[in-house]
C-alpha cells in the first residue's frame, strides 16, 4: 500500500504534496479546535489498525480502514491520514518525507469519496442499508487506493507498469476483507455508540 522512499519521480512527488496540502487545508478548515481529540483518536486507531493482521489463506494482510475513517471523518480524513502516515514514517520507517504527500492522497482521497457516497446510509437508514454502505465503503476505498497506487507508479516511470498491475491485483482480496470488516464495524458502532457516526 505504501510506496517507499526514493522510488517515484519528482513530478509525481510534487503533485502529491500539492494535492495533499490542499486536502489537508480543507480538512483543517472543517475541523474545529474542539474536534482535535476526536480526530486524533480516529487517526491513531487508523494507525493501530495497520498493525492488525488478518489471515487470508497461507499469508496475512493488515487492515487499512480508510473507508471507515472517511465515513466517520469526511474531509478531516486528510489531516488524520497525513498524521498517521507521518507517525508510521517516524516510528517504523514506512514511508518518509518525500512520499508523505502522495501516500496521503492515495489513501485520503478514496476516504473522502466514501464519505460522500456512504455516510448518509451508514448513519441513518436501516441496518441492512448501513451494512451495505459499510461494505461498499471498505471495498471501494481499498479498490481506489490500490488503483491510485498503481497509477502513481505507472505514471512515475513506464518500467513500473508490470509491478503496478500486480499491486492492483494484490488489492483484490483485501477489498473483500475490508468490505466485511467495515460493514460489521459500522453495525457495531450503530448499536454501541451511535454518536461516533453522527458527530462529524
Amino acid at each position, binding site marked *: 500500500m505504501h510506496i517507499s522512499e526514493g522510488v517515484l519521480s519528482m513530478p509525481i512527488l510534487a503533485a502529491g504534496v500539492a494535492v495533499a496540502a490542499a486536502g489537508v487545508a480543507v480538512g483543517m478548515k472543517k475541523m474545529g479546535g474542539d474536534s482535535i481529540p476526536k480526530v486524533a483518536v480516529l487517526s491513531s486507531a487508523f494507525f493501530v489498525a495497520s498493525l492488525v*493482521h488478518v489471515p487470508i*489463506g497461507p499469508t496475512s494482510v493488515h487492515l487499512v480502514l480508510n473507508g471507515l475513517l472517511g465515513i466517520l471523518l469526511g474531509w478531516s480524513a486528510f489531516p488524520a491520514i497525513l498524521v498517521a502516515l507521518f507517525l508510521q514514517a517516524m516510528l517504523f520507517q514506512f514511508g518518509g518525507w518525500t512520499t508523505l504527500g502522495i501516500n496521503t492522497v492515495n489513501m485520503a482521497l478514496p476516504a473522502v469519496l466514501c464519505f460522500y457516497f456512504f455516510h448518509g446510509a451508514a448513519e441513518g437508514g436501516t441496518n441492512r442499508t448501513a451494512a451495505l454502505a459499510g461494505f461498499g465503503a471498505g471495498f471501494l476505498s481499498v479498490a481506489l487506493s490500490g488503483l491510485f497506487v498503481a497509477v502513481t507508479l505507472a505514471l512515475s516511470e513506464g518500467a513500473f507498469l*508490470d509491478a503496478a498491475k500486480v499491486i492492483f491485483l494484490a488489492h483484490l482480496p483485501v477489498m473483500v476483507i475490508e468490505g466485511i470488516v467495515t460493514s460489521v464495524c459500522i453495525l457495531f458502532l450503530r448499536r454501541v455508540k451511535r454518536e461516533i457516526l453522527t458527530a462529524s
Partner: protein
Amino acid sequence: MIDEPLAGERKQTFLYRLDPRTKILGSLVFSFSAALIQNLPAAGVAFLFALSVLFLAQPPPGRTAALLAAANGFVLFLWVFLPFSVPGETLFAVGPFHATREGIDRALVLTVRSNAIFFFTAAFVASTPMAAIARGLEGLGVPEKLVSLFFFTYRYAVEIGKEYTRILNAMRIRCFRPRTNFHTYRHLAFLVGMMLVNGYERGLRVRSAMVCRGFRGRIPLLEAPSVKTSDAFALGVLACVLVVVVTVHG
C-alpha cells in the same frame, strides 16, 4: 506495543543536541535531493553519507537493522519486475522474460538512493524525541492545529495500542484463533469497533481533564529551542555533501 523503536536510551550524541528544526530541515532537503538522483556514483555518495550520519546517531543496532530490512520490502518487490521491464541489452532470460543490463542498473540506483533516504531518516528519528519533532514542526511554520493533532495522535496511539493488546488477549483466552473465515473477520471488526469506542471515550475524558487544567487548543513549549553554531556547522556539512553529490552526478 507502540514505543519509539529507534530511541534506545537516547544517547546524548552530537545529532541529539542539534535543534529539531535543523534536523527536520536537513532530513527534508536530503530526502528530496536523494530522490532526484539518477546515477549510481551519486547515489553511492549519498548512501555513504547517510550511513555515517546513522553511525553518529548510534541507534540500537538490532531494532534498526530489523526496521531497515522491513523498509526494503517494497524495493525488493520492485526487483522482481524492474530488470525485466526496461528495454536494452539482455543479460539473462527466465522463460519468456529477458533481464536487461539497463533494467538492473535502474533497480540498483533505486535501491541505493532509497536506502540512503532510509538511513538518513532513521538517523533523524533515532536522535529526535517525538516531542522535539512536534516542537520543530511548529517552529518551522506547520499550523498549530496540525501539530496538536500529531501530538494527540501519538499519545492516543500508545493508549489504543494497549487497548488492542488487552482486547486481543481477552479474545485469545476465549480460544479465538484467527483463520480465513467470516467468523474471524467479524470478530476482528468487533475488536476494531471496541477499540474505537473505548478510544473515543478515553479521548473525551482526556480532553475534559486538559480543559480543567487550562488547555486552550495548543500545547505550550517548555523551552524555546535556539539555533547554535553546531546547527550552522551541521547544515554546512550537509550542503557540502549535496554539492559533491551534484558534482558526481554531472
